[in-house]
């Protein structure tokens, strides 16, 4: 059992303190760190959206990068065509993410378990190759963002402090919305899907529309993260849609503890930090990161955020821990 490191109240304080520190960062006068923090926030947003699926519905999507990618491409293509107003481009990016999620979800959600994992991978690969075939947008090379997204005349995303605050605000806003979402009747049904789908059907709920709705919401949020990403790097390329990115997003979610919303955000921050520190230290940083990942899975069952939770809470929240503990569970045919 994970030992309780801090009490819930302390945990809340720790989170607020972290947030305050984060918000003060631009005053340090180190633009580089502001960008690094923005990167954390953007990936945090993407990881958060993936947690809605993995943590709350038990749907392991191995193709989430596709939605980030479609968000980035929407913003990039709109900018190339003279639409650089964030109020227009970003909602359109989310819409594109939602529509793509609707299409992919409609087919993928027929599958369960491993098949769902790999069919989402298949679709993201299709999106990947689709992006690469866009010759007018640089094909495999991708293309520079013609113009940063403009919030107000004179205020745009090329100012990294502005982008940082915008991203952080969006993250907090989305976090709030997601908190509401998972506590709503819809969110409870989602947990029902994760816990026990046959039972859900037996109490009269058809899970499919709920899964699809969650998939769409999640896709839209990921697309928003993609829109931010395009502005952060000033560049859009099929690399955003690579299956490795999808894998990284899953790692972030798991690293932080899934099914907690806040955990994956911390996981994303840690991931970006690891990557930064390790790759700075040695070009063979994967040799450290790989084993760390294995150790995380083998030893730290509840993730980083889980360490901060009390034992009962962590296991109630994570589907892995709520599996039945009958001794014969691995033997009896089911």
């Amino acid at each position, binding site marked *: 059992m994970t030992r309780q490191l801090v009490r819930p109240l302390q945990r809340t304080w720790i989170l607020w303190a972290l947030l305050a520190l984060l918000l003060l960062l631009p005053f340090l006068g180190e633009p580089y760190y502001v960008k690094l923090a923005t990167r954390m926030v953007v990936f945090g947003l993407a990881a958060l959206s993936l947690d809605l699926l993995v943590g709350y519905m038990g749907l392991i999507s191995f193709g989430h990068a596709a939605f980030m990618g479609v968000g980035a491409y929407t913003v990039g293509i709109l900018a190339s065509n003279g639409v650089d107003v964030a109020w227009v481009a970003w909602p359109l990016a989310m819409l594109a993410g939602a529509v793509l999620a609707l299409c992919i979800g409609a087919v993928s959600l027929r599958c369960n378990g491993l098949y769902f994992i790999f069919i989402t991978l298949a679709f993201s690969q299709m999106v990947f190759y689709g992006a690469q075939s866009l010759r007018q947008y640089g094909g495999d090379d991708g293309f520079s963002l013609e113009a940063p997204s403009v919030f107000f005349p004179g205020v745009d995303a090329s100012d990294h402090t502005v982008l940082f605050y915008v991203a952080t605000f969006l993250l907090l806003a989305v976090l709030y919305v997601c908190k509401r979402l998972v506590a709503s009747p819809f969110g409870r049904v989602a947990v029902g899907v994760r816990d026990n789908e046959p039972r859900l059907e037996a109490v009269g709920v058809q899970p499919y529309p709920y899964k699809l709705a969650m998939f769409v919401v999640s896709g839209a949020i990921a697309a928003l993260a993609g829109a931010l990403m395009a502005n952060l790097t000033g560049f859009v390329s099929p690399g955003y849609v690579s299956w490795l990115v999808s894998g990284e997003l899953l790692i972030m979610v798991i690293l932080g503890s899934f099914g907690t919303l806040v955990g994956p955000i911390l996981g994303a921050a840690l991931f970006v930090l690891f990557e930064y520190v390790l790759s700075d230290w040695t070009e063979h940083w994967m040799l450290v990161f790989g084993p760390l990942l294995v150790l995380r899975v083998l030893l730290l069952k509840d993730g980083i955020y889980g360490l901060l939770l009390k034992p009962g809470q962590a296991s109630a929240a994570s589907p892995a821990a709520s599996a039945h*503990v*009958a*001794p*014969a569970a691995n*033997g*009896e*045919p089911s």
Partner: protein
Amino acid sequence: MREAGDAATGREVLLQFDKVCSGYGLGQVLFDVSLRVNKGEVVSLMGRNGMGKTTLIRTAMGMLVPRDGQVSFAERRLNGMAMHRVAALGLGWVPEGRFIFPSLSVEENLMATASNRRGSTQPWTLERIYELFPRLHERRRNGGGQLSGGEQQMLTIGRALMTNPRLLILDEATEGLAPKIRQEIWQTLAAIKGTGQSILVVDKDVRALARLADRHYMIEKGCIAWQGDSTALLADAQLAKRYVGI
């Protein structure tokens, strides 16, 4: 140290439970259970649903680790031993719920785990099993999953015998079977007993057990509530009613 043989009969002790406590997760099911099966002996274990019979068997097999007390088999301490090593010592297990291997054919079910570790001179072979259960011979090419419940039960018994166990353990071997099949199973067990096989049998059929077994244990709420031989069992009509609840 315990003496090697059983003081009363002078026979070698196979399975021995000594004040064993056991259970699942946080809940305890067995409380200070002591029990003994000697070589060449048939011992029965009776009790109502949920009293801990299966739990006792699982503890013997090493599926559950005793929290207290000691389980041993032919002088070897079993506490904490891996299940496959326990079984390899010579415990042939016929589990409750059958658990045949559905994707193996009947013959494969018998063959897969067959062994003769102690080099028995008259080992159980496919031929002998088929002799015992002609029905299995008829269906030897069928998938295990296609058998009827009774056939599956025969198969699990055959499968356990094929490991040439020193002690055969049957957990509810007649459960859910048609009366005629039950009859057959009991006859078979009697025949197996005739070969000198030691058996620990769990069941609710008191009359059949009284005919088959030499000694009996009644288990209630995880404790051994009564033990004695068949005469004692048949003598007291209240006994069965009280502990087995028929």
